[in-house]
Every structure is written in structure tokens, then in C-alpha cells.
């Protein structure tokens, strides 16, 4: 137990990196050994993650556990601070779960031009970056992990991607870098301006716990708004929030299947996580001022993403645009600044990670069989590969928010939360957003069912009618996919599994908001009324 307390988070963060280093020593030709090494590493990480989950004290889910606090860069007052609470736990679990599945899928799906060694090693480095971002409790450490993710993903798209991979990878890299450079400026301003709320002394710290407690005390409103603006750009690009979303369809379409799955399942969550972990708790006053705008961009994203989906001719691009819409729901939940809305957002992140990740797996497999993702040319999948077709149908249902599956608990409460946002945020505006978002769910049903109709139903098109390559789901796909399918049902039936963990942490992080002069009493009321306390 002591070991877990002191080393647990470090272990789960750096195990993948250690695995990647070990893989460097294995010769390139030994593909099988390399795949085994990568899979074993990710399974070991999963085991470490499960161990952390089991030993986690769920009665204290609101406070950080397994805290590590060591010196790292003393000259700038930054520490190696890690911790896990109910807000980061579901995302950590999602990451450690999805990665082994991706490695299993890679067993017989190494994209062209091959070189399994580099491909798998990059994914392991990526895993370290993602886990580190979710457990970091120091702004600079967070920033470093946040950026470590960029390079492997850049290379994954650039080397193993589709036709336009060069353009897509550069666009992805430049967009995110632009956001994070301004975000870093925001962090620095926070460092120099934050004061202790009690004594009024300058804090001069990057410790996220301290800054969350300070909640922007002593920073004048105009500076708060600017700092929040920097973070808004950094996180908003990553989410991606309309109008910063244009990198996403390109990156998704061009990335190899594994890249798309990781991008959808985990990478996009780094942005939303940044909002709920850093931007909002540390600058509640600015968050209140920005909330209507975030909400506006979110609902534009919902409608724009949905309309974009309706116009797509490529299956993968369609799923990418549906990501924009779904992340819009998540952002709408966050913009309400209520306990209820943010819980819904975290649920939405996990659900979107599982469901959209799954859709990209399916798209990858379809591409492999048909060598195209053009919706017009596909059809009759239910006849040719019935299991694949049914899995597509099931996941589409989950994605459009069918009650009883995970997607529902991400969308419905987010819309509901918009009915009554936190005090100090214009209610009428958010009720308007609510209506628009509800229309968005109808559009979502529209584009997903239409996709299903065009690809899975009907007769197979002539060119593929007798194609022997079109086989049903194979062994590796079953192993990789069944845990995701199972979890989509499980979280759909028992959403409390996630809500119970996240709620205490969300309440804790919003406490500061509750202390605002006129703000946020509404949060408590709304929580009691809607969420049952």
C-alpha cells in the first residue's frame, strides 16, 4: 500500500515509456516480439491502473489520492506533483483500457509503410503523455505532458496516414501548438499574479492544488479574463471547439485507424479535462464571464458538426464531424458551471471515448475490407459481414444517445443542465442553447441512421458483391472490441458507476465558485434538485 501511495502514479505513467525504451533494443525484424513487448507493456500498465482503481478510496473521491510531491525545477517553482481524484480517475481508466485494445488490434493491422517497431513505440510514448496529463497536479508538469502527446501523434499521422497525411499532420501540429503556446502564457501570468486569498501574499506557485484553492484571488478581473482567454485557446483547440475544429476532420481522416481511435478516445479529452481541472476552478470569475461564449461555441459546434456529418461522403470523415458535435455537448455541460453539467461532461467524455473510438475501429476494418470508405460505394454490410454490420448498428445507436447505452448519459444530462446554469450566468441564453442542443440530438439520429441505412442495409453493390476479401469480424477484432461493447452497455445501464466517482471531485472543484458573492448558490440547488444530492 505504501508502495502504491508513493510510486503508483509514477509507475502507471512511465511504464509505457520504459516499454518503449526496451523496444528500442529489439531489432526491427522481430515484429512478433515487438508486438508482444508493446502489448505486454500496455497490459502491465492496465494492471497497474486497475490496482490503483481497486485501492482507490471511493469515500474520499473528492480529494487527491496517491499524491506525490517532489522537487523538479526549483528555479521556476515547479514540482513533480501527481495525484488522482474522482475527476481524473475515469479518464485514467479509459486511457489504460483503450491502449491495450489498440495494441491487440495492431496485431495484424500494422498500417503501410510498416515498421512496427517505430509505430508501436510511438504509441507507448503517447500513452505516457496522456496518462501524465491526467495525473499531473502541477501546471508545468501538465504542460509538458500535454505537449509530449503532440510529437508521437504528429509522426503517426505523417508516416502511417493516408494520401494527404503531410498536410493533415502539420495542420494538427500547428493548431495545437498555437493554442498551447498562449496557454503557457496564461499559466505564467497565473503564477505571477495569484495571491493567497487569506493573507494576500503572492503565491508564486504552479501547484494546481494551491491555485485551485486560491481561485484567482487577487487577480483583477481584466487580467483574469485574458488569462482565461489564453487557456480557452489552448484547451479549445484540443477539444476541438468550433471554430478551432478544422484540424480534426483532416487529422482523423488521414490518421491510421489506431491513431484515429486514440485521438477520439483520449486525446480530445485532454482539452475538456483542462477546462474542468484548470481553467474553471482556478479562475471561476472569468469562467462565469466566458461561460455564455463557451456555450455559444458549443451549440454552434453541435449543429455545425451535425450538418457537416450530413454532407459527408466519406465514412471516416463523417465520424470525425460527429466528434465535433459530441464534444459540443460536453462543452455545453461544462459551460453551465454546475455540478450536474460537469458530471455530465465527464460522463460524456468517457462515453464518447468508448463509442467514437469503437466507430473508428469499425471504419478501419471496413476500409481494410473494402479499400474505400466512400459511403456511396458501400452497402449491404449486414448481408456480407453481418456481425460487423450489427456492431456498426449497435455503436451508432449508442452514439445517437439511445437510452440504456452509454451515449445517453453524456448528452441528456448536459442538455438538462443547460436549463438551469450556475448563478450569475444568463438563464435565458442557456435555455436557448438547450433547445438548439436538443435539435442537435435529432440531427445526430438523422445522420447516424442514414449512415447505417446506406452502408449496412440494402444489397451489396456490384463491385463488392463477390469480393472474397469481405469477411466478417476476425479473432483480433473480437478481442479488441468486446470490452468496449460491454462497457457501452454497462455504463448505459449503471451510469452511477461513473457519476458516483466524479461527483465528489466536481463538487470539490466548484466549491470556490460557490463562494462567489452572488454566484453559484444555484449550483447547490440545482444539484440537489436534479441529481438527488
Amino acid at each position, binding site marked *: 500500500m505504501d508502495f502504491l501511495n508513493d510510486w503508483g502514479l509514477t509507475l502507471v505513467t512511465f511504464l509505457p515509456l520504459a516499454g518503449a525504451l526496451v523496444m528500442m533494443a529489439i531489432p526491427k525484424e522481430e515484429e512478433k516480439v515487438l508486438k508482444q513487448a508493446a502489448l505486454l507493456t500496455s497490459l502491465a500498465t492496465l494492471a497497474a491502473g486497475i490496482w490503483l482503481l481497486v485501492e482507490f478510496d471511493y469515500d474520499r473521491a473528492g480529494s487527491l489520492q496517491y499524491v506525490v510531491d517532489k522537487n523538479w525545477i*526549483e*528555479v521556476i517553482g515547479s514540482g513533480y506533483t501527481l495525484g488522482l481524484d474522482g475527476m481524473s480517475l475515469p479518464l485514467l481508466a479509459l486511457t489504460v483500457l483503450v491502449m491495450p485494445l489498440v495494441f491487440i488490434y495492431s496485431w495484424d493491422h500494422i498500417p503501410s509503410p510498416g515498421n512496427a517497431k517505430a509505430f508501436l513505440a510511438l504509441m507507448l510514448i503517447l500513452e505516457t503523455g496522456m496518462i501524465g496529463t491526467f495525473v499531473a497536479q502541477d501546471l508545468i508538469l501538465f504542460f509538458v505532458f500535454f505537449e*509530449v502527446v503532440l*510529437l508521437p501523434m504528429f509522426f503517426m499521422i505523417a508516416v502511417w496516414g493516408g494520401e494527404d497525411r503531410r498536410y493533415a499532420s*502539420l495542420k494538427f501540429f*500547428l493548431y495545437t501548438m498555437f493554442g498551447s*503556446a498562449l496557454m503557457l*502564457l496564461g499559466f*505564467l*501570468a497565473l503564477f505571477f499574479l495569484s495571491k493567497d486569498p487569506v493573507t494576500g501574499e503572492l503565491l508564486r506557485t504552479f501547484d494546481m492544488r494551491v491555485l485551485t484553492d486560491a481561485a484567482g484571488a487577487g487577480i483583477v478581473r481584466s487580467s483574469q479574463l485574458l488569462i482565461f482567454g489564453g487557456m480557452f485557446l489552448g484547451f479549445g483547440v484540443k477539444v476541438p471547439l468550433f471554430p478551432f475544429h478544422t484540424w480534426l476532420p483532416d487529422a482523423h481522416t488521414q490518421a491510421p485507424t489506431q491513431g484515429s481511435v486514440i485521438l477520439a478516445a483520449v486525446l480530445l479529452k485532454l482539452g475538456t479535462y483542462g477546462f474542468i481541472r484548470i481553467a474553471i476552478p482556478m479562475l471561476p470569475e472569468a469562467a462565469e464571464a466566458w461561460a455564455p461564449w463557451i456555450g455559444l461555441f458549443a451549440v454552434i459546434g453541435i449543429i455545425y458538426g451535425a450538418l457537416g456529418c450530413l454532407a459527408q461522403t466519406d465514412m471516416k470523415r463523417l465520424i470525425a464531424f460527429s466528434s465535433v458535435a459530441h464534444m459540443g455537448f460536453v462543452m455545453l455541460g461544462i459551460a453551465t458551471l454546475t455540478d450536474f453539467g460537469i458530471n455530465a461532461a465527464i460522463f460524456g467524455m468517457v462515453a464518447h471515448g468508448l463509442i467514437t473510438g469503437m466507430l473508428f475501429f469499425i471504419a478501419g476494418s471496413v476500409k481494410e475490407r473494402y479499400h474505400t470508405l466512400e459511403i456511396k460505394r458501400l452497402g449491404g454490410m449486414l448481408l456480407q459481414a453481418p456481425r460487423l454490420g450489427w456492431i456498426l448498428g449497435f455503436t451508432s445507436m449508442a452514439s445517437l444517445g439511445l437510452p440504456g447505452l452509454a451515449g445517453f448519459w453524456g448528452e441528456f444530462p448536459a442538455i438538462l443542465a443547460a436549463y438551469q446554469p450556475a448563478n450569475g450566468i444568463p438563464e435565458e441564453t442557456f435555455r436557448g442553447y438547450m433547445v438548439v442542443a436538443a435539435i442537435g440530438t435529432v440531427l445526430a439520429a438523422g445522420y447516424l441512421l442514414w449512415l447505417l441505412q446506406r452502408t449496412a442495409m440494402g444489397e451489396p453493390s456490384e463491385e463488392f458483391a463477390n469480393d472474397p476479401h469481405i469477411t466478417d469480424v476476425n479473432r483480433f477484432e473480437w478481442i479488441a472490441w468486446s470490452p468496449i461493447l460491454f462497457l457501452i452497455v454497462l455504463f448505459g445501464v449503471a451510469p452511477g458507476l461513473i457519476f458516483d466517482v466524479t461527483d465528489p471531485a466536481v463538487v470539490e472543484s466548484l466549491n470556490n465558485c460557490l463562494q462567489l458573492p452572488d454566484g453559484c448558490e444555484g449550483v447547490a440547488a440545482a444539484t440537489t434538485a436534479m441529481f438527488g444530492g
Partner: protein
Amino acid sequence: MLAQLAQQTESFVRPAIDWHAVAPELTLLAVGALVTLLDIVFLERGRRFTSAVAAVGLLITMVPIVTLALDGNDRSLFSGAFVVDNYALVMKALFVLSAYVVVLLSANYVAEGDYWENEYYGLVLSSVLGMVLMASARDLITVFVALELLSIPAYMLASWRKRDLKSNEAGIKYYLMGVFASAILLYGMSLLYGSAGSTLLTDINSAVGASGAPSAVVVLGIVFVVVGFGFKVSAVPFHTWAPDTYEGAPTPVTAFLSVASKAAGFVALMNLLFVGFVERGDIYEPLLWVLAALSMTVGNLIALRQTNIVRMLAYSGVAQAGYMLAPLAVASSVPDTALSATVTYLVIYAAMNLGAFVVVMAVARKTRSAEISSFNGLFSYAPGLAVAMSLFLFALAGIPPFGGWFAKFRVMEAVIEAETTSGLVLGVVVAVNSVIALYYYARIGLGMWANDAPDGDLTPVRLPFSLASALILTGGVTLVFGVLPQLVGDLTQVSLLSGIGG
């Protein structure tokens, strides 16, 4: 008359010399003399040893630097004209180690190119001597002597490939621009001397640092000094020599110029600025702000269009100089942070930029080209070099966990800490420029990883021992400084204000 003179000479009392404090300079001088002697005594047979002697000599020079650092006392000689403090020692170590890497780079290049070897290393060593002296110079005369001592050999080194027109152009251009800059600098110095009545920087500080509006002479003096060093560090709009000189000079010399010589320019500027007129922020800050913002923006925008990697690195070096100038533009409000930020940047920049040149030279051994397109497909035939080059390029772009991010972070920290609007705007300029720069760095990365090798030629690159060791040295330092920035942070927590009682 003569008798009188003789009498005066007798009455001359040698100032007390702390031999330990000047040991690094004396060692370098001895090594330089030894290299020259080897040539005279052994003639052609000495050729084989010169590079080794120079390299070992540079490592030996590190010994007194380290002992001085361990000793820890600040030493001041010649009534304050020559000072050995932590800042001076860090910079001396930087110069000596950069020169060591440059010698490693030169070993095969100079020998295989059939250039004059003994003279080459002798000139490198005397240039380094000038730089090491510069780190301690706290007096106008000393600064100027050090500057000429480091520049004049560099002019000759730039035109070392004497049968090549471009190399001649490089040398001439560098020489003319350098002399022009020296003249401007000297004029500025004379004005400062005129208003202070002393060449000691501390005296100048007490004369010009007084409150109230500065006299026109002081304003002109400071502006000319800053502009003079603007040439040396290739800040826009005084950068025009850099791309041509870098392209024409032998590649190891280019590496030397872009790292050590540029750092020496910064050291001189910082000596003058922090010891000589730190409180005159009203004069130098707007000037440096404009120089920094212009250097970053113009350097990066022109770098976008380059097809030759050395020219691209030259323009990227111009932009990097802009980042290093940025903290100096807020030097009067946060002097210690600003100095520390620029020193940090210089140290990390030396490692990553030298590293990039190592890879450029290694690849050029095979492709015989410096075109960016010659890097296409590098990953397919030399994965190690491709990974190393990616490391250096993304370090230059400032992507964690490679060293460059911490350097940029310190720059941003300094400009934000000033808590002025102009500082904040400069921070945004730095942030936006990092994104512009990422484009051309990442494009090379893309070419190495995602494109096919030209002509499908997949023969591996043979790496001579000296290049391999230079690669490991620079790569290791770049990576370690990125992951454990505290190491470089400890080194660069320096101050220049103690000398002026600040």
C-alpha cells in the same frame, strides 16, 4: 629623455595578478602556441596531431574553470576590469565546450578537404581565447580587445575554402560588416567614456545611471553600443550578412559562428547592459523590444521560404537571437530573471544548434548536398540520425520534453514577470513566433520520416568517431536539459548586479 623613461618604467609596479583567475585564458594561450609550434617543428608530419591537441587542450582548459567554480569566490583583477564570477565561468565553460564540439566537427572535414590544418585550429583557439576573455571583461577596453580577438580569426575562418567563391564572399561580407559594426560600437563606447570619464563599466553605471533625463551623449552612446552588438548577434535589421556567411563558410565554422560567436556577442552586450547602464531602461528597452520582435518575426518568416538547410538554420538563428533578446527588453524591471533567461537560452541553444549542425554534416557526407530535400527519407536509411535530427529540430521549436522548451519558458517567464503591457505583448509575439517556426522545423521532420529517399538510394551513412561523439554529447545534453531543467537552472542562476552594488 630616455633615462627619464627608464626611470618611469622602473617605477611601474605590476598589479597583483591572481594566476588562478586567469588560468583558463593562459591555458588556451599555451595550447594555441603549442599547435603553432607543432606546425613549425614537425611541418607536414604534425598535421595528424593538431586536431587532437586542440581538442585535448580545450578539455584541459575546463580544469581551471571547474576549480574556479568549486572555489566559488568572485575574483576581481585590474581594478575591476577583469572579473571572474559564476556568470563568467558558465559562459567560459559554454565557449570552451562549444569549441570542443566544433573541433570534433572539424576533424574529418578539414583533414579530408585538404585545408590548412594547423592554422585552422590555431585560429579557432585564439577566437575562443577572445570569447573566454569577453566573459570576464568589465571594462570598455577589455571588451573591445576581446571582441577583436574573437572576430578577426573568425573572418579568416569563414573564407577557409579559399578556392570556393562563396566562401570568399562569406569572409569578405563578414569582415566588412564586422568592421563596420566595430566602428559603430567604438563610437558608442567613446561617447560613454566621454560622459563617465572612465572605461570601467561600474564607473559608467554610476555616471549614466543617475535619475533624470539622460544627456544626448548618453542616449547616442547606448544606442550605438546596442546597435554595434546587434550586428554581432545578427539581429534584424543588422542580420543581412548572416545567411551568406553561414552558407559560404565551411560548415564547422558556420556552427562555430552561429553558436559560440553569437553567444560572445550576447555576453558582451549583457556585460555592458547589466554592469554599465542597467538603469537606463528608458533608452535601451524600446530599442531592444523592436530588435527582438523584428528578429523573431522576420527571421522566422524568411526561414519559411528556404530550400538550403544551412540558410534555413541561419534564419532560424536570427529568430532564436530574437528570443534571446526578448528578456533584455525588460532588463531594467527584472534584471536577474532577464539575465538568467538569456543565459539559459544561450546554454540550451548551443547544445541543440550544434547538434543540428552535426547531423547536417553527417548527412552531407553521404548526399554531398545541403538542400533540405536531401533529408528526404533519412529515416529509412539512417533511423538514428533521423531521430537525432528530429530531437534537435523539435528542441529548437520548443516542444517538450526536449531542451528548447525550457529556454523559451524562461524567456516568457521574464517578459511576463515584468508585468508591463509591452512585456506581455512581447510574450504573445514569442508565442506566435514559436508556431511559425514550428512549420519549417516540422517540415524537415516530415521530409525525413514521411518522404522517400531521393533516387531510392538507401545506403547507410557512415559516421566517423568524432561526429558520433559530438552527436551523443549534444543530443544527451539537449535531452537531459529538457527532462531535468533544474540542472541548467542551477547553472544559470547568475547575477551581474553584485558588481554594481545592486
